[in-house]
């Protein structure tokens, strides 16, 4: 059996396991939900961290995402993969957080001032790329994260952010240009 086939089988097995955990969690099993948390926490944290560019806030929003997921897991009908559903729920939560009056408005934040040694940002460095993304304006950063990292389509992003597809494309263009200015 080739390495690809082994990997494919492992993925299938994992997908089945996730489906079982989801089913058990839907019937009230907290231990099954813990398995889901363990499986998805890294991806959800990465999404939250990249979207809100703040570790403490990302942790808080990740926690909230899983609490909300537990509350709403009964509504998950399996029409999409659970991971996709969870990512959608988390991105909605981050966007809602930034929309709420106690926090910064989506349009309100401009590109933060870079530290004096920012010229050392290197495209090849993962840390620098993450930093450059984090320094993007909020709305542009969210669109870039959801489109270029999470692979969401413009119409999907437009829907969750309650903006037009045109605005979404414009924000992505802006984000990419800012990244190019910073990194190249």
């Amino acid at each position, binding site marked *: 059996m080739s390495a690809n086939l082994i990997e494919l089988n492992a993925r299938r097995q994992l997908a089945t396991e996730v489906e079982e955990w989801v089913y058990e969690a839907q019937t009230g099993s907290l231990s099954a939900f813990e398995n889901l948390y363990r499986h998805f926490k*890294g991806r959800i944290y990465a999404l939250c961290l990249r979207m809100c560019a703040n570790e403490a806030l990302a942790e808080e929003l990740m*926690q909230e995402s899983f609490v909300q997921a*537990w509350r709403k897991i009964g509504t998950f009908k399996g029409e999409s993969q659970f991971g996709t559903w969870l990512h959608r729920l988390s991105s909605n939560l981050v966007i809602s957080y930034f929309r709420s009056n106690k926090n910064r408005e989506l349009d309100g934040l401009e590109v933060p001032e870079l530290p004096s040694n920012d010229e050392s940002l290197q*495209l090849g460095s993962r840390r620098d790329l993450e930093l450059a993304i984090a320094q993007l304006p909020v709305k542009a950063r969210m669109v870039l994260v959801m489109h270029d990292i999470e692979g969401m389509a413009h119409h999907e992003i437009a829907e969750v952010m309650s903006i037009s597809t045109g605005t979404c494309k414009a924000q992505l263009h802006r984000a990419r240009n800012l990244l190019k200015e910073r990194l190249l």
Partner: protein
Amino acid sequence: MSERDDRDWSKIKQSIERLPDSIEPPNDQWSAIRHRIELDASRLKSKSQQGWMPYAVAASLLLALVSTAISWKSMSAYQALQQQQIALFEQQRSLQLMEDQHQLVKARFLDDFEQQTESMDPAVVADVKNNLVIIEQAIADIKRALMQDPGNQRLNELLAETYSQERQLIEQIKLSYPTI
């Protein structure tokens, strides 16, 4: 976007694609998540335990209201039936009284009439008898119909009218033949 822009973006895109899908959070959030879920569950439980009382009270109240409504309806129906029976009884008594008076008047007339028939035109006698038979037949028909439908107001009125017609006939004969 120019070619250079495309090339520049392509470099960044490759770097983005190499970014890890997953980043380990600095702290394990499970205990906090579990705590919040359990708190939710206990709140929900307490809410549902507190919640049954108003529903029970509402259900009892509803049951009482429904019972009262049913009783009221039954009572009303019973009372209506009772009133209907009383009215029917009164009507029957009134008809019986009318019948008794009629029989008395008719019997007296027939006695007098039979005594006078020999001195009367046989055609007139036959005509009077014929009319009395017709009226008697009509009264018998109405009484039969009333036995099937005692509460029928129209039949009762018709019976009273027929008795009245018979009385009028007797009165006319008496006027024509003062000796009767």
